[in-house]
C-alpha cells in the first residue's frame, strides 16, 4: 500500500519525530509506514487521517 504521509508531513514542516509525537507512536513506526515497510492497522490509519483532517483514502492508496 502506498501513502502520502511524507508529502503531508513536509507540507506542515514536521519531522518524523514531530509526527510520531503527535500520533503517540515511535519514530521507527512513522518511518516504517512512510517507506511502505509497514501497513498500519485501521485504528492507526484513522488516527493519522484525523490528524491531517483528511479521509483515509486520501492518505493511503491501493497498489493497484
Amino acid at each position: 500500500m502506498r501513502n502520502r504521509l511524507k508529502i503531508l508531513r513536509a507540507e506542515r514542516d514536521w519531522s518524523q519525530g514531530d509526527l510520531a509525537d503527535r500520533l503517540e507512536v515511535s519514530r521507527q513506526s512513522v518511518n516504517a509506514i512512510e517507506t511502505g515497510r509497514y501497513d498500519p492497522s485501521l485504528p492507526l490509519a484513522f488516527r493519522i487521517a484525523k490528524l491531517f483532517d483528511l479521509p483515509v483514502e486520501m492518505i493511503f492508496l491501493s497498489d493497484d
Partner: protein
Amino acid sequence: MPKYNAAQRRYNKRAIGLSLLYVLLLVAAIVVFKRMHPSGPLAWLLAILPALPIMAIVAAMGRYLVEESDEYLRAMEVRKSLIATGFMLTVTTGWGFLQSFELLPQVDFYWATIVWFGGLGVGGCVQALRR
C-alpha cells in the same frame, strides 16, 4: 520520544532483575549441591530454582507484547519471536536426529531455551537487513 518507551523500560527492568536472580540462584544451587549433597524433595526444589527466573523472563516477554502500545514495535517483536522459534525448532530437530544416530553428543533440554534466545539475535539481524 525517549530511547525506550514505558513498556520497554518495564521489560528491561524485569529482565535485568530476573537475570541477576538467575545467577544468584544458580550459584546457590551449585554451592549447596557441592557442599551438602541434598537428596529427595530438597534436591528437586534446589535443582528447579535456577530455571524459575528463566521461565519468568519468557513470561516477561509475553507481558511486554501485551503492554507495548506501539503496534509496529509489537509486530517487529512478534516477528523476531517467530524467527527465534523457527530457529530453535530447526536446530533442536537437526541436533536430535544427529544425536539419535550417535553423531553428536547428548545435550540437556535447557539448551533449547538458550538456542531460542540466540534465535532472537538472528531475528534482530534479519530485521536489520530488511530495513
